[in-house]
């Protein structure tokens, strides 16, 4: 069975187990969502002494993780994105980022992938609010190979970090040879007519859009950003200088996240027309992914349309 035949959350649990095999200081923390995160039973059974359940108490989980990190442990704390980011925003801000402690916060079921849990659980803001926190790195891996590489990097780097974790199985974008560098964007495909910037869950949809656009005579420079912070500005600016148009797509509010980062950099370094795709400043709701893509305009066909319009090839 290839790695990409697994659910993303399974790879999260499997990789934590491998990291614990190599380093007994790696600790898995959960807040009563361990089955949802993929660490139960995997980590619970393989490394019971390195598994800590805080119960439905996310704030305490973050504080405990900060205390563990202050003693040299490498805690990975998971919960749904809404609880791992906005619910514990002050705990992560002060006890982790401000204190500069080596805590890894993992937000599961990002954006539309929270589907059936609906508006209360569907966070479109976590990339934005984590990105504006000093000291934090913010990652959003798009497939199992990248997830595994990102987790290995997180365990090795002494660095407060927030990572989005998609839970279900997703199509592979990369393969076993993938390596992760938070300072570098990944050029998924090279082109000259338009730049398409994606992260996390939207990257495989963006890749489909690029394939369709190729058939329509539109050549896309597709940049995937596994790290929204730090953000590889040089690659974006170089691409924008060639294509003169940038489309961004993210499984988030269009305010403050990936699209926000792109606009900040381009407006200062290489003013370029930008179209941001994502959720236009609205809350989530109980709905299918297809419904939400259509409602908010960030599915494959919307990516195709935005790229053609900005490239002047309608």
């Amino acid at each position, binding site marked *: 069975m290839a790695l990409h035949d697994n659910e993303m959350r399974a790879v999260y649990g499997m990789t934590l187990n491998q990291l614990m095999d190599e380093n007994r200081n790696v600790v898995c923390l959960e807040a009563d969502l361990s089955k949802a995160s993929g660490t139960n039973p995997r980590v619970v059974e393989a490394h019971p002494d390195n598994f800590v359940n805080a119960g439905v*108490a996310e704030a305490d989980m973050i*504080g*405990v*993780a900060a205390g*563990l990190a*202050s003693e040299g442990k490498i805690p990975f704390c998971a919960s749904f994105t809404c609880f791992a980011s906005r619910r514990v925003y002050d*705990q992560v801000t002060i006890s982790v980022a401000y204190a500069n402690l080596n805590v890894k916060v993992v937000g599961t079921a990002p954006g539309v992938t929270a589907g059936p849990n609906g508006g209360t659980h569907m966070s479109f803001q976590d990339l934005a609010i984590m990105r504006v926190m000093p000291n934090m790195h913010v990652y959003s891996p798009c497939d199992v190979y990248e997830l595994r590489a990102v987790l290995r990097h997180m365990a090795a780097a002494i660095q407060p970090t927030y990572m989005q974790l998609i839970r279900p199985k997703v199509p592979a974008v990369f393969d076993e040879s993938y390596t992760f560098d938070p300072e570098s964007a990944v050029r998924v495909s090279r082109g000259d007519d338009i730049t398409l910037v994606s992260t996390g869950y939207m990257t495989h949809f963006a890749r489909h859009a690029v394939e369709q656009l190729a058939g329509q005579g539109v050549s896309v420079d597709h940049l995937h950003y596994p790290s929204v912070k730090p953000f590889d500005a040089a690659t974006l600016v170089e691409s924008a200088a060639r294509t003169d148009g940038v489309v961004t797509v993210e499984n988030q509010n269009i305010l403050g996240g990936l699209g926000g980062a792109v606009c900040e950099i381009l407006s200062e370094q290489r003013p370029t027309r930008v179209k941001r795709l994502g959720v236009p400043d609205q809350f989530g709701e109980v709905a299918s992914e297809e419904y939400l893509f259509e409602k908010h305009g960030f599915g494959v066909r919307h990516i195709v349309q935005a790229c053609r319009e900005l490239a002047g090839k309608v």
Partner: protein
Amino acid sequence: MNQDFDRQAFDRLAAEWRYVITDMICRAKSGHLGGALSLVEIVLTLYWRIMRVDPKAPKWKDRDRLVLSKGHAAPVLYVALAYQGFFPKSWLKTLNEDGTRLPSHADARFVPGVDMTTGSLGQGLSCAAGAALAARMDDGDHTVFCIIGDGESDEGQNWEAAMFAAHHGLDNLVAVTDYNRLQIDGFTEEVMGLEPLADKWRAFGWQVFEMDGHDWEDIYTTIREAQAVKGRPAMILAHTIKGKGNLAVEGRPESHNIKVPDAEAYAKYMGALVERDFELPYC
């Protein structure tokens, strides 16, 4: 650096600390005087008679830890660490100065000997529980102490941490509540009633002690008893007087954060110290 107890010497040292703390806060023109003064005897006892620390090795793995969750009381911790020799006493006069290494709230990033960065109330007990859990994972035999405020006890995260520490049987965790019965807006029982506080901690699975937070022997014997508890964390309710030893603020709600705009106010606060025949260690 555990020292033999000499009541007269300890009384004198505590009075000197109150003098220095008042001066530090007055120089900074504002600060949390009341909650620092209420902790003088407790912090002094911890560092002089209880805690295993080495000022020359502030990150020594086997040291006892102290998380000052009520981070605004940092001046009393900074004085303790400076007098222990973790850093020069001359730093003390820089409290809150631009670019200082001694910010108003306890900061482990810049201050040798501070074990946890605190300041946003309610978070320190969770951090202390995490440090205690790490100690158990690593077979450490040290104690993690945590001091929380009574007003701070309004924060719900304390009670999450209370459940966590009891559930995990963290008997290497000893918490102290600075129970001076005052918070920013007034008396704790008027702003947000805490009583029956001892029963609350007992119900959460903690071994509860009470002590007079200004009585040297009571402090020492109670903390030692709390350290000896097996199978569960310990909470000591320390009955204290906010602003103790400075009559301008002692027992008064306005002691929480004083403003010292001019020489007249400075003279008022320094003149109200019960004992003030000291030389400042940094002038």
